């Protein structure tokens, strides 16, 4: 017997939707028969706007592409320009960049833990993690002058040197975050109910994961050990020791475990960075930003963001403005085609849950 199918529009105004998008669901009983994502509610035409702006003017714009984690955007654009131009980046700047990227990863995972728990009604967790994330934002504020939008990494290095005593405060915050981990574990990761909810839900089969274009923690949650930081080390990741955690469950639970372990890895990476950071210059100055011309060329650079491979394809035609900047956000594949696939057969209660586990980020889908 086939149950009667109803259509449910999840979003764009819906508390369970991350950001601003819509999932159109065909539901039979509690089971989803067909899912269709509708995006474009946040389309601001970044790529078009960047064609109107000079290279330096593009930097304040790109960080708005992904709101929870803006730094990979800045880093990517900076590195793409550096690659086209052949500009050297001082070693210290590279270390600072890694520190910023990893702090951003911690902040994003804090947000993710909150979102993942909030989507299943554990409201204590977001209160904790998002509150604790604020300490990372305080660090960012001290380092860059902005809480969320940093405008810190730019072509040639970073914008300002570390303030006095900054690394000590980073270490202190890291200690605090590490001390909070047992609490997080007790509340979320050891919680029998979370395991029950998460296991066997939102399956991305191992043999399909690469073919579907899955990247980042979802890929590693499907037992495939790939990470841009290892595959194509950028900045100074090749000089740091860290492991890339994987888990074989292919479900929401194993993705959560992967992220949980990466959280610890990030803390350890930042500690190594602080230990190894050389003294010296932090910025290889670009010419006058009003007349700065980047020689013709193209580059595809990528970063391992908290959600996976974050790629920028940048083309220059030798003028003061970019010819084309194409942003390949991890959520682009995750949030549209992948979500449509793995929602089929899921329970309607799990939509938001699965979306969170993929790290869907609408502003980065439509840009």
């Amino acid at each position, binding site marked *: 017997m086939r149950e009667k199918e109803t259509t449910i529009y999840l979003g764009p105004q819906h508390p369970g939707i991350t950001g601003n998008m819509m999932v159109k669901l065909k539901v039979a009983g509690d089971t989803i028969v067909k899912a269709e994502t509708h995006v474009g509610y946040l389309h601001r035409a970044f790529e078009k706007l960047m064609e109107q702006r000079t290279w330096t003017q593009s930097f304040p714009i790109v960080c708005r592409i992904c709101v929870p984690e803006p730094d990979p955007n800045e880093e990517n654009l900076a590195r793409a320009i550096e690659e086209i131009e052949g500009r050297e980046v001082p070693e210290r700047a590279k270390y600072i960049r890694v520190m910023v990227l990893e702090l951003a990863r911690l902040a994003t995972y804090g947000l993710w833990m909150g979102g993942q728990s909030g989507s299943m*009604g554990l409201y204590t967790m977001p209160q904790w993690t998002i509150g604790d994330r604020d300490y990372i934002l305080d660090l960012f504020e001290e380092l860059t002058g902005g809480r969320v939008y940093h405008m810190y990494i730019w072509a040639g290095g970073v914008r300002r040197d570390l303030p006095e005593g900054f690394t000590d405060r980073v270490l202190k915050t890291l200690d605090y975050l590490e001390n909070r981990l047992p609490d997080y574990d007790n509340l979320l990761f050891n919680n029998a*109910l979370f395991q029950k909810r998460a296991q066997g839900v939102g399956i991305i089969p191992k043999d399909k994961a690469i073919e579907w274009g899955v990247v980042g923690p979802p890929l590693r949650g499907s037992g495939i050990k790939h990470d841009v930081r290892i595959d194509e080390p950028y900045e100074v990741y090749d000089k740091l020791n860290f492991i890339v955690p994987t888990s074989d469950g292919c479900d929401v639970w194993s993705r959560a475990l992967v992220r949980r372990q990466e959280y610890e890895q990030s803390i350890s990476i930042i500690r190594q960075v602080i230990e190894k950071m050389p003294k010296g210059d932090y910025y290889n100055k670009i010419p006058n930003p009003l007349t700065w011309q980047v020689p013709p060329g193209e580059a595809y650079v990528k970063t391992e963001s908290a959600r996976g491979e974050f790629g920028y394809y940048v083309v220059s035609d030798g003028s003061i403005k970019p010819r084309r900047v194409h942003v390949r956000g991890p959520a682009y594949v995750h949030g549209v085609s992948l979500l449509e696939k793995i929602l089929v057969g899921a329970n309607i*209660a799990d939509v938001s849950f699965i979306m969170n586990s993929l790290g869907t980020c609408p502003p980065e889908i439509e840009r």
Partner: protein
Amino acid sequence: MDINWLKVLGIIITPIIAFIVGVAYGGIVRNITARVQNRFGPPVVQNFWDIIKLYSKKTTVSHGWMHHLAPVFAITASVTTLYFIPVLRDSKLFANLSFSGDLIFLLYIMVFGSLGMALGVGQSGNPNAAIGVSRGLSMMVGYEIPFVLALVAIMIQFHTTSLNDLLAVQDKFTNWIIFQSPIAFIAAILAFLGMMGYAPFDVVIAPAEIASGPPSEFGGKYLGLMQTSRSIFTFAKLVLFTDIFLGGAGDFGTLIVKTFLLYMIPVLTGIVNPRFRTEQAIRFFWKWPTVFGVIAILAVVMKG
């Protein structure tokens, strides 16, 4: 006809007290939750402002007359439930309408509100609300079974279907039914978790899944009515459980302490747990609580 003025007065002030205590509890719960969440939380009277605000809102939505009736059903059910529960032991003022078969009657009347809601919500055509209602009804099926089993066990054990009789049995501390019949209490308290609608059994109003479930289409005064009814109903359920298992209360002080402690069980569970999916929740109720309920009955029967 001889009018018992004392009873009339009781009928008038009982809901008012229930409302005030229920809403105040809501405020305190928000504060306790806030503390666990490392923050200060709203003022204790916050829920009063919320309800006053809701009543002062203009309401322009309509989805037919059943839609209007739903909150009325809800508040009727909760007030009626309250009327059949003796709030204070041996108090003429708060004896209310309890009668010899009231326990059985309560089992029915408590369901009434949800059914009324279901009818009203069905009119609105909002799928979220509809799913919420169907979840609510399934949940009810889930937790009613262990609850009924527990009550049946007690009814058999004490040979009564009257709350006043049960109160009379628990004349001293050691005679509280929680001690006399602990297995039935376990079954009942697990069902109680489901009844109160806190996590992990808050699938009905799960915001991230189905907006806010049944009340999705209700705003302003309707929502105010529903909040009122919810507050009264919460208090009613707490008093009911206090009466059945904790020996009732002779004065308001004891009542507040007992009900508050009882209330903390679902609240604290809710703070630290995520919610079950519907079928998981039902499976849960039909597993452990039901087993305890059956054991309770078996124990009573075998003893008797």
